C-alpha cells in the first residue's frame, strides 16, 4: 500500500480561536487537492500550519516527506526575493535538492534552467524579479518549486492573476511534478481552475472541511445548472 504523504489527525488550526477544527484527512502521492472557501475562512492558515510555520491549536499532523526539499510552498504573496534575479530565485529550489558534490553547481544550474525553460521565462533569467509582471512572477515561483521537485507542494492562490495561456503553462509544469508522484494542495478562488487541476476538493464551510471527489463535485455543478 502507498503511504500517505500527509495525514491530518484531529487537527484544529487558527490563531487564538480555531478557524477550522477536527480535520481528519489523508493525502497520497499524485493527488491534487484544491481548497475552496470564502475569504477569511482559514485556508491560508491551514496551509501555513502544514508548512510548519504556525503551530496547530490542537491535534497533529504527520508529514511523510524529506526534511530538506521534501515540502514546497508558494505563499499567497509568492515569497520571492524581489531584488535577486529570476535564476537566483529558481536556484533556491534546486539548492534544497542538490547535495554537496563536485558538480553541484552544474547540477543546480541544470535544474534551474530546465525549470525556467518549462515555464517560458528562460529569457528573463538575469532580470531582477521586481521588474517582472505579476503573472511572470507567479511563473518564477512555480519554477522554483519545479526545480525543487518536492514530494508535497503547497500553493496559496498561485494561479490568481494568470490569464488562460499562463494557466496552461503552469498547469503543464505542475502536471510534470504530479506525474512523478508529487502531491499538490492548492488554494483557489476560481471554480474553473479547481476543476482543471484537482482530483479532490476540500470545501471549507463553517469551520469544517468537506472532502469531495472531483467527480462528485462536477456532478453537483451540472446538477446545479439543470435546476
Amino acid at each position, binding site marked *: 500500500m502507498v503511504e500517505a504523504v500527509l495525514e491530518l489527525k484531529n487537527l484544529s488550526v487558527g490563531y487564538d480561536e480555531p478557524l477550522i477544527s477536527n480535520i481528519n484527512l489523508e493525502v497520497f502521492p499524485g493527488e491534487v487537492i484544491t481548497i475552496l472557501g470564502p475569504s477569511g475562512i482559514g485556508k491560508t492558515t491551514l496551509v*501555513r500550519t502544514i*508548512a*510548519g*510555520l504556525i503551530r496547530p491549536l490542537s491535534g497533529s499532523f504527520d508529514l511523510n516527506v*524529506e*526534511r*530538506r*526539499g*521534501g*515540502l*514546497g*510552498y*508558494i*505563499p*499567497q*504573496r*509568492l*515569497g*520571492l*526575493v*524581489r*531584488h*535577486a534575479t529570476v535564476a*537566483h530565485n529558481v536556484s*533556491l*529550489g534546486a*539548492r*534544497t535538492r542538490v547535495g554537496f558534490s563536485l558538480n553541484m553547481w552544474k547540477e543546480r544550474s541544470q535544474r534551474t534552467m530546465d525549470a525556467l525553460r518549462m515555464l517560458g521565462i528562460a529569457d528573463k533569467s538575469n532580470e*531582477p524579479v*521586481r*521588474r517582472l509582471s505579476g503573472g511572470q512572477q507567479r511563473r518564477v515561483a512555480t519554477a*522554483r518549486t519545479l526545480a*525543487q521537485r*518536492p514530494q508535497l507542494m*503547497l500553493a496559496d492562490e498561485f494561479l490568481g492573476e494568470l490569464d488562460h495561456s499562463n494557466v496552461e503553462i503552469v498547469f503543464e509544469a505542475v502536471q510534470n511534478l504530479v506525474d512523478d508522484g508529487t502531491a499538490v494542495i492548492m488554494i483557489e478562488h476560481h471554480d474553473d481552475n479547481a476543476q482543471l487541476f484537482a482530483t479532490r476538493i476540500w470545501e471549507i464551510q463553517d469551520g469544517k472541511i468537506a472532502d469531495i471527489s472531483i467527480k462528485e463535485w462536477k456532478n453537483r455543478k451540472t446538477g446545479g445548472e439543470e435546476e
Partner: protein
Amino acid sequence: MKYRLFGIISILLLLAWQTLDGLIEGDWGRLEGGLGNLSVFFSESMWPPNWSVIEARPYPVCESEIEFFCSVGYLGMMETIKIAFVATILGFIGALFFSSLAARNLVPLYVAIPVRILLSAIRSLPSLIWAILFVIVIGFGPLSGVLAMTFYTVGYLGKLQYETFEGMANDSLEASRAMGLPRSSILLNVVIPENSNHLLSQLMFMFEYNVRHGTVIGIVGAGGIGYYISTYLKFLQYEKVFALLILIFVVVVIIDLLSMMVRSFVNDEGDVRRPTWLNVVLSEK
C-alpha cells in the same frame, strides 16, 4: 490629519525649548555674546582658509610631479579614507554576523537578546573612546584607528542591519523555511539579497561616517587627517584647520554621490532610466 502632525511638532518644539531654557537656567545672553564671538573668530582667525595644506610639504622632498600628492591635506585625507575603508569593510562583515543572530525573525529570542545586548555594549563606547583604548593598548598609528572604527562599526551597523532584517516582508522567509533551506543559506541567499539596497546604503553611510570620525580619532593619535588638525589647533593655525575641514566636506559630498550611484543598481529607482547627466555619460551608445 495635517493639523494633528502640525500640533505634535509644535508641542515637541515647545518641549525642547522649555528643556533648553531649564538647562541654561534662562541665561540667553550668552548666546548673543557667543554669536558675536563666532563672527569675530571666524573673520579674524579662520578666514580665509589657508590652502597651503594642499601644497607640497617642505619635508620630505616631493617625488611626485603633482604637488597636491605631497600635501598634508592629501596625505592625511588618504590615510583617513584608507582607515575608514578597511574598518568599514571589516566592520560590515562582523556586523552581518552579529545582526543575523540578533534579528527576531531569523533566530529564537534566547539567541537574539544576548547578541543585542552585546551589540549595544559595543556601541555604547563612541569610536573616540575605542581609539583611546587601542592607542593605550597597541600604541599610536593607523592600526589603532582601524581597530577602533571596526569595533564601533560592528556595534552601529549591526543595529541598523538587524532592524532592517526585522522589517523585511516575511513571505520569502517563510517560503524558504518551509522548503527546508538551512539557516545559513537563507541568510546568504534570501535575507542579504532582499535587503541589499538598505545594506548598501548603510554601508556607504557608515563609510562616510567613518571618514568624518577619522578626523576625531586622529586627534588622539590613531592616524589620519585628524593628526594634522589637532596639530594646527594646538598651534592656533585656524586657517589651515578650516581648509582641512573644507576638504573633508568635499570628500563627504563625493562619497554621498558615490553612494547614490551604487544604490541605483539595486533599488527600484535604478529601473527607471531617466535622462540624467550620469546616464548620459555612462550610457553605452
